[in-house]
């Protein structure tokens, strides 16, 4: 069975989703989905170990050989993404038991878990596939299920947010589809490795350029690249807490991964950064996103919204690393994908606990909450420090790599900018901490229910993530080794 792990990685949650529909009983479905998520995570870890110990793994579906059939490719880059996605999904499941039950109508719970597993299957599929069109299909599987997941939020604004995301997301996916269609017209193939080979002599063609533009903008919409991020804040704010955890930790990162795959493996480094001004574009977009969205985050009154804008800002760091066009910069980006998944899902987990007990994520409702929910807020602080990039947290590691990459490249102002924007993060995280720790509970609006500490089933996942933030801050050798190899693989492939 070991040889089949790449395909099991995707089809396990895919098969489990319809089984959830047949099971129907909410608790039973939850138990089943949890087992599936944990198994999926185990598979991804085994794959990562296999890949780090040897060559990339290829799996031909239906035994159709590469350019004709669909191939799943697990290399160090995709293995890393698989571990992140399935790991966050597995950690969020125990949390979902109480959190989802309190925020989603009971007769819809089994559908929620079905959609969750479908979304997981889609995200894993994007990470593992070596076929450009297959990527589109998985992109849409994950997107359609995430629109549904977001619309399950209690507030009616969730519906509007989901609709906006649906329109923007569909435009993004369709633009990607146009790009792939143009590449197919040019080369007659959809396999990424084959595309790269056949595209090499055609890079000057205007069709290549058009396809490149469509794909970058299309995936840019999906990954919430700065001016295309408008769907994200509402979607993350109004979705049920578990969905925020899962999507904030994975969705945009997987889209960024897809963009990197296409940029490096199909078009190649030389085309992206020497013939096309991708360095400048990404740098501008990254800086604008970092500064503007961090500033906007400072003025929000809803914790989830603060974190959502911070997510857009943090994508700036990842794009900035790519803009350096060096292996070190790319490694910093990949590291930040990993660390940001950890810290942002940790923050959303803590907020999920707060929402369960206070019924709201408005700052005004959280005055003095730290006295009643000390463990939850402590986890929030740990992950918040990680977001800021304080030493001995995971967030510090990726910023350290990013600053070193900026210095190595000789882009001094960017190194300064990374530090400056971290200070903006201090401000918006501090606002939450100040309210939660230093305001009296009497500041809450009249009629707020008294809060108690969150149940263990939610605290444990929160603290697993918080502890991981500290662990990977103290000993980053594993993620550093993986990302170093991944960056080398990406830079080398197109060179």
């Amino acid at each position, binding site marked *: 069975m070991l040889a089949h792990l790449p395909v099991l990685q995707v089809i396990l949650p895919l098969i489990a989703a319809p089984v959830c529909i047949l099971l129907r009983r909410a608790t039973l479905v939850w138990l089943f989905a949890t087992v599936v998520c944990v198994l999926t995570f185990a598979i991804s870890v085994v794959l990562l170990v296999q890949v780090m110990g040897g060559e990339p793994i290829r799996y031909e579906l239906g035994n159709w050989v590469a350019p004709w059939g669909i191939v799943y490719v697990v290399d160090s880059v995709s293995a890393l993404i698989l571990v992140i996605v399935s790991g966050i999904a597995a950690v969020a499941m125990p949390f979902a038991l109480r959190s989802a039950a309190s925020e989603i109508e009971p007769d819809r719970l089994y559908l929620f878990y079905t959609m969750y597993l479908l979304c997981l299957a889609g995200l894993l599929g994007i990470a593992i596939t070596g076929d450009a069109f297959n990527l589109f299909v998985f992109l849409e599987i994950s997107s359609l299920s995430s629109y549904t997941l977001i619309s399950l939020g209690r507030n009616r604004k969730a519906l509007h947010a989901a609709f906006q995301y649906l329109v923007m997301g569909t435009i993004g996916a369709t633009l990607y589809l*146009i790009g792939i269609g143009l590449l*197919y017209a040019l080369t007659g193939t959809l396999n990424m490795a084959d595309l790269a080979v056949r595209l090499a002599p055609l890079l000057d063609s205007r069709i290549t350029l058009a396809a490149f533009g469509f794909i970058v903008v299309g995936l840019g919409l999906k990954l919430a690249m700065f001016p295309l991020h408008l769907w994200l804040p509402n979607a993350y704010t109004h979705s049920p807490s578990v969905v925020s955890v899962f999507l904030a930790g994975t969705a945009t990162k997987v889209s960024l991964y897809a963009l990197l795959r296409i940029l490096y493996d199909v078009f190649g480094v030389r085309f992206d950064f020497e013939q096309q001004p991708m360095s400048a574009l990404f740098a501008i977009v990254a800086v604008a996103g970092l500064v503007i969205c961090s500033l906007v985050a400072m003025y929000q009154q809803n914790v989830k919204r603060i974190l959502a804008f911070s997510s857009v800002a943090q994508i700036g760091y990842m794009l900035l690393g790519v803009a350096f066009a060096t292996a070190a910069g790319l490694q910093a980006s990949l590291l930040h994908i990993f660390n940001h998944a950890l810290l942002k899902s940790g923050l959303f987990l803590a907020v999920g606990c707060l929402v369960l007990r206070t019924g709201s994520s408005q700052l005004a409702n959280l005055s003095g909450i730290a006295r009643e929910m000390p463990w939850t807020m402590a986890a929030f602080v740990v992950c918040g420090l990680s977001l800021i990039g304080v030493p001995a947290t995971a967030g510090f590691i990726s910023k350290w790599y990013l600053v070193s990459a900026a210095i190595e490249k000789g882009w001094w102002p960017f190194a300064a900018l990374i530090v400056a924007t971290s200070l903006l993060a201090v401000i918006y995280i501090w606002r939450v901490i100040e309210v939660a720790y230093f305001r009296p509970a009497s500041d809450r609006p009249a009629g707020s229910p008294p809060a108690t500490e969150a149940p263990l089933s939610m605290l444990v996942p929160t603290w697993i993530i918080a502890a991981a933030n500290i662990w990977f801050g103290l000993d980053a050798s594993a993620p550093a080794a993986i990302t170093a190899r991944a960056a080398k693989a990406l830079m080398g492939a197109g060179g």
Partner: protein
Amino acid sequence: MTDLIIGLYNYWIVIILMMVGFYIVMSRQNLVKSLIGLNIFQTSVFILYITLGKVTGGTAPILEKGIKLYSNPLPHVLILTAIVVGVSTTALGLALVVRIKEAYGTIEENEINRMDNES
């Protein structure tokens, strides 16, 4: 010049439909209308793919004796998948519109935005 316009008429149709759809999505306040625009936008891509698959003088790609030249079936298969995705998107979008109508009492985006900002 005539070659550019008439010889490539299918591409012109694709471009026109694409822009019409995109404009409708961007400009309409009515949620159903923007979904219609989205559909037109997607349809233009379907036509683009089908255009790509056409081989001049080729017949339908069915295995028959005596037929050598046939259209490329792959784009058709790809676009069948994309059509299914489009149908799902439309169904989900309309379902959301129905729920929005029930929750807000309107499907005009500016009114919904106003209500969102008030609460």
